[in-house]
């Protein structure tokens, strides 16, 4: 649902050019759907990010000593809130070059915000709980969505013309964890499918 919401805004915000939907399915090399993949369409001519999309609500919750969602895609200029729903304090940080920040200790019911002004990826951590890990992927296009458990998304209202379709996943075994496909979007678009190699990783026990 979260992934759909920004896309709907895109649909409303970009009525000028000829536009059509683009559906994309991401599977791993074993054919299983890949969740938490961020799919973007970047028109060759570029595309402005509407103010309404920047000001939409983007939330990275801390709950049960975990970040939720594991991957959050936001457009450049978006402000993300970090509500703490745990009964313990968290100390959220990122040393990623895209947007290094830290949110010193805060407790249950409190929230903090960070505005992301550059495209890239922020890997998040909590200095109290080493097992907590999540990613914020900051994109420079209004056409983006994140896959759910079925590995599928629909980019709404993709304008006609050449561009790049990219799939990013924090654990993808690829340069910059990303694969790209150059293509031309038309009045109707054939569904696109990607097979990507995602590396499993160790999950630690999270506890208070």
């Amino acid at each position, binding site marked *: 649902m979260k992934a759909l919401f920004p896309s709907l805004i895109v649909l409303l915000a970009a009525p000028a050019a000829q536009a059509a939907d683009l559906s994309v399915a991401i599977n791993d090399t074993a054919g299983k759907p890949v969740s938490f993949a961020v799919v973007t369409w970047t028109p060759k001519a570029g595309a402005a990010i509407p103010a309404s999309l920047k000001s939409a609500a983007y939330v990275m919750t801390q709950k049960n000593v975990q970040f939720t969602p594991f991957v959050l895609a936001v457009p450049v200029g978006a402000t993300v809130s970090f509500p703490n729903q745990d009964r313990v304090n968290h100390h959220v940080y990122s040393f990623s070059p895209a947007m290094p920040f830290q949110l*010193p200790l805060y407790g249950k019911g409190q929230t903090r915000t960070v505005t992301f002004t550059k495209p890239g990826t922020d890997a998040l951590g909590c200095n109290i709980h080493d097992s907590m890990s999540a990613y914020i992927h900051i994109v420079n296009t209004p056409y983006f969505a994140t896959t759910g458990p079925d590995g599928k998304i629909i980019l709404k209202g993709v304008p006609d013309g050449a561009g790049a379709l990219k799939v990013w996943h924090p654990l993808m075994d690829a340069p910059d964890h990303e694969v790209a496909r150059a293509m031309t979007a038309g009045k109707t678009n054939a569904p696109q499918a990607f097979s990507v190699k995602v590396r499993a*990783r*160790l999950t630690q026990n999270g506890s208070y």
Partner: protein
Amino acid sequence: MIRNPHPWLALAAALTGSAASPGLAQTELFSPETVKAWVDVRLTATDGERGWLDGGFGKTRYGGNDDGAHLAQAVMVWQPRLADTVTAYVIGQYVPESDEPFGIEEAFVKWKPVPKSALRYSVRAGQFFPPVSLEHDGAGWTTTRTVTPSAINSWIGEEVLVQGLEGNLQTQVAEHGLALTLGGFTKNDTSATILTWRGWALHDISASESTGLPLPDGPQGWSNTLGANQSAHSRPLAEVDGRLGYYVRLDWRPPAPLAVDAEFYDNQGDPQVLRNGQWGWATRFYNLGVTWQPAQDWEVLGQYMTGQSNMGWRMSNGFWAFDVKYDSAYLLATRKFGDGSQLTGRIDYFAVKDLSWRKKDDNTERGHAATVAWIRPLTGHLDLAAEVLHVNSYRPARAIQGLDPRQAQTQVQIALKAHL
């Protein structure tokens, strides 16, 4: 409580306090978040020989005459925040069958600055178990997959508790996580006394600063050879030789659901020193650990340890009067279910090779154990566990107590843990 706060503690408090003083506004000494507590009660049935806590050679916590209901452990963990990057950690426990039931298991101050790059570090000072066990990842140095730890980590819990300073450095090289841990410590000079004379065991009693571990009864090895020069209780936190010990650990996390660690520990004990019935033991061991998650709800752990300890005096054949080599390994698999319950199976192997003086004091040992445990949270404050542990072992020294050197023992436990 700790009777004499150790100089390390004072030093650490001074160091970390001064380094982090800008964050003092974040001090949080007493709040629901800083205190954890639990009571662990058991229903147990065990066959076979007398338990080691009663002076026997039994391999499990409860012996053949201990059936019934028991309070296993009552614990309070206090985790005050001294500054935004400085925490303290104190585990106070009550274990009724210990000779000193109240005690402090771990008590340390930890400084962990917020990472500014992929290179991160932390320092802790105080009393703690060196990071050997893969099984003790629960609050207050408890196991989370079984009630009873493996032979290796049972031994860490009883005879490898130190007071010192430990630094941890982590970094990322390409997609590989690497970490280096270095520890320097005092105390722990008697480490391997129990491992030598009682042998390996599988139980969940962890040492405290005041712990005395009973040696087996009888006119046997240690009492026959040393008489009054060896206390009937070994004190793991004794300092008898004034030497520092150390350990080094390397961790590697490849881009796969796998983690590997390797560690070397050396207490640099002086094997010829005797003080108050406590001998210095020169004890060093290697430990290798592997964690693997073959699927999302499966976890496999394994450790292998091999070590050598000696004590006493040089014999004419070049060996020490008390000279043992030991090794142990386990393989554990856990299946996690959607309701939070988990089922675990574990196989242990353990052995001690006695290199000297076997006619008077034969500490040879060989054994295997199989464990099946099921743990399920009933509510947010109540956990239920059921465990069956079977141990087969061969130890010639049992003959001194009139026992068959070959013994088999099965322990069934139902545990209920009520926690805050």
